């Protein structure tokens, strides 16, 4: 309850200052790259002692090992001179797909052949609030901005699917079979299985096509791999479009009120 009040008070206070608030809307798409040098732990809980197995991203199916983020939001900008802050309430619709293969297929206690596979996918709707500092500059008359910030994401609607598929296309429910999959904290599937507040640092580069229309290029960090190995590449790269609208200049007629002699 306090946070919205603080935000509203903040907005009220800054809107009272002479520098005009700018607001608009933004839509973007970001593609997440999953690490293929990474592993995930699967714990067999069916025995007297839990046994742990490792699975690795399937290099052959790497093209499927990816995440997608489609987001749209309503940025509010405020700042002074080149320095501006963007508050971006948005909704992020995130999906992830990950095929794995096992380190030692022969030792697998489940499945019947080496062709059995492990497949994760998730679908999340995450409201988020981003705060970004941007530094504006001009290069040959082109208006550009670079910035850094953080997105606070709160997964709400989550649909995860974890499937162990054997070569005969028989699916096993891992919970029924008594397996637990351990996700490293702050990884994408951990987010999916453990909703909470997640922080994503991000970097942006804006190219203004016109005064209020900008193309946004961005990179934001949100762990996509299991976290057990250092990934070669991890995070989202994306692009979007932002259209900003000022409140407009002062009303021509109301400006005349300054000439009133009370």
């Amino acid at each position: 309850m306090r946070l919205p009040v603080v935000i509203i008070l903040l907005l009220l206070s800054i809107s009272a200052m002479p520098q005009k608030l700018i607001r608009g809307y933004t839509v973007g798409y970001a593609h997440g790259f999953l690490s293929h040098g990474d592993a995930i732990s699967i714990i067999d809980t069916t025995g007297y002692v839990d046994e742990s197995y490792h699975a690795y991203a399937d290099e052959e199916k790497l093209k499927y090992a990816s995440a997608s983020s489609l987001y749209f939001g309503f940025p509010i900008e405020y700042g002074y001179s080149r320095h501006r802050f963007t508050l971006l309430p948005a909704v992020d619709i995130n999906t992830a797909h990950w095929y794995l293969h096992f380190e030692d297929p022969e030792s697998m206690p489940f499945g019947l052949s080496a062709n059995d596979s492990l497949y994760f996918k998730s679908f999340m709707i995450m409201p988020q609030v981003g705060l970004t500092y941007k530094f504006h500059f001009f290069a040959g008359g082109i208006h550009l901005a670079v910035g850094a910030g953080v997105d606070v994401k709160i997964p709400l609607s989550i649909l995860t699917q974890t499937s162990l598929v054997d070569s005969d296309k028989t699916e096993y429910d891992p919970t029924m079979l008594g397996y637990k999959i351990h996700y490293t904290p702050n990884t994408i599937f951990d987010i999916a299985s453990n909703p909470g507040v997640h922080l994503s640092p991000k970097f942006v580069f804006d190219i203004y096509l016109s005064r209020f229309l900008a193309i946004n290029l961005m990179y934001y960090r949100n762990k996509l791999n299991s976290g057990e190995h250092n990934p070669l590449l991890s995070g989202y790269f994306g692009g979007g479009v932002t259209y900003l609208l000022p409140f407009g200049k002062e009303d021509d007629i109301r400006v005349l009120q300054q000439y009133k002699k009370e």
Partner: protein
Amino acid sequence: MHINTSNSRTMAKSMIIAFFLTIIVVGSNAQNVIPVVQTGHSGKIKCVNWDNTGRYIASADMNNDVVINDVIAGKQFFKVKLPGKGTVTGLQFDKSKLIIANHGQNYVFDMNSLTLEPCNESINIAPDDGGYKLRGATVKKGARSLINKDIYVHFTQVASHPNGELVIAGDEAGWLYFCKPSLNIIKRDRTHRLDITDIDYSDDGKYIAIASADRSISIWSIAELKLEKRLVPRSFNIYGMDAHPDGSRLAFGDELGYTYLLVFENDKITCKGINTHRSRVNDVCFTPNPMCVATAGGDNFASVVDFENNIPLQYFKLQPNTSKLKQTFNIKGIQAKATSTDEDEIFFDENVYSVAVSPDGKQIAYSGGKWGNTNPMLKVSAISNLNLDEPKEKRKKRKMEIGLTQKNNKHIFPQLFFISENEFYGLGESNNEAQRFKLSITGYDEKDNTSVRSGFDDNVRPNNMTVIVSKSKKSMTDDYLVKKDLNSEDEFSCRGYTITRTSRGRSVKFEGHRGYINDVEIIRDKNYLISSAEDAAMIIWNIETGEKIMTVYVVDQGKLVFISPDNYYLAQGDALTGMGFNYNGRVLPAEQFDLKYNRPDIVMDKLGIFKPDVIALYYKAYLKRLSKTGFNVEMLKADMNLPELVIENVTDIQYKTTQPDLKLKLNMSDKMYEIDRMNVWVNDVPLFGTNGLSLIDKHTKNTGTEVNIPLSEGNNVIQVSCMNSIGVESLKDEFVIEREV
């Protein structure tokens, strides 16, 4: 010191006589004396230019009005309207001539003869940008750049000082950036609130004039980068008007939000103004009580104003939930704005466009715009608690009301009109269509519609009632406002700046406004057509002939000036301060011509509504005023030589100073007689006493002298004049200087 009182009194009297003699003599040469109402601009200023002496500033606005200000005298020198449809693109002084560049046809204005003629000369103003270029939110020159403090606000003007040591840039939010040549900011200021539209340095490089779309011009000293003066408009456009059925009252509202009640009484004209709205008054309407008027404001409120108690009795809110915060997060509004191609469209429209009060004074109806993507508002509210039919003591200020509406209302009406206690029409939304509404317990119900031209029942046709047949965007080529007199076949259509009355196939044109027409009203029993326009003027016409009877200006919020086409005027209260007289290329205080042109008797006679005995009384009063000065009407026909006084160092006079005194170099001359004395007044206090400073010992017809004038803190209005040996005084030269301590 012993003072000879008798001599002093005699001398004082002779000086007064001399002064008025001067007035009369000069005044007799009527074609050279033009009254100038100090209106300023009534539209966005587009360009500005200094004259070579640094005394005059010319500026042109979007209405094609060119205003010349005498900066030293602190008065508007003249205002001229460019004919035709082209727009002014530039101004350039050439000594006493002003060349006005205009699309298609250039003009030259002669400041001595006050004539405007087409010319083939073109203006040749060297660009003063010094190589600095505007690129959106930046000003650039080579590797140097100035970036706007609001990155989304673009610069609109940049000008480099002739000596190259100062660069001034202005942006579309009215901010001024005073910079070094390296574009490092020295000072930033926001005197103006809208686009900076032009920047011009004076020829001596000491001052800079900055024009803005907010209708003002600021003058800055280069040495201190200090605001010296701001030339602001003093008259504002009049929008809604309503003529009372009794024919003796006219209510109107202006851009500033004042509501006025003008009353033609038996023996005088009175006018009262009440500050009602925080934006312009779009519409006014009489209530059954002729001293109470309903208003529709651009600030989201309608109101009922009581001119007996001098207060707005009650406000009625149009849009219930409006706030900047809501605008911020109104996504539909953002989308609508992003996809709209109409720049003039207002998305968060807080205008109440029309208002009407029921004949019994119990209900008020008001119609307004859309706020965001909501439906427009048409509301009604009960006002019986205002006791409009009761004496003024029973009418008290009431709390603001929200009113009742229908959620599905889609109408925005520029006029509402009650035909009975519980029925009203909305007019002007569609051509020739009147939409009927019936009051109900929950507000109102929409009923059938009818044709405006077919008229209403005979019993709902109040006198002087004009109804809108159609209303559209203002245009030079199409009729944008058509009103119909309910009691005749007359229609009044407005196109460009002209009104045309059409009646039974015959048409009469009313030409004389200098801006788009805002409203027309009729007072049938006085034979008046009254129009308001975007030129800050209200004109009273002869409805039959189209002859201009009188131009009315509201100066300084509530002071009315009536000027007849032959320059006689009637100024209410101290409205004279809003006047000046242009004589032989100089602008002079109105008092100097007051005796000649301040003729309420002539003005009232021309209005044609006052009885001869009333006019005779005013004429008698005028004669009495004359006789007090020792003159009669016959003396007006006299011709006489006047001494002349010239302030030689006039261009050295600063608008503001910290010095305790001011040195003036004066030259006085007379073709026939020796110069006898001179005098200086500071804020109406004679510096050398009522007798002035004697110069008789010099025995010369041409003499020069220097005087030191002590200045008091604040504004010093300084007047100087000289008198010849037969007691004739020169015109007073007047200027204003502000002393800062």
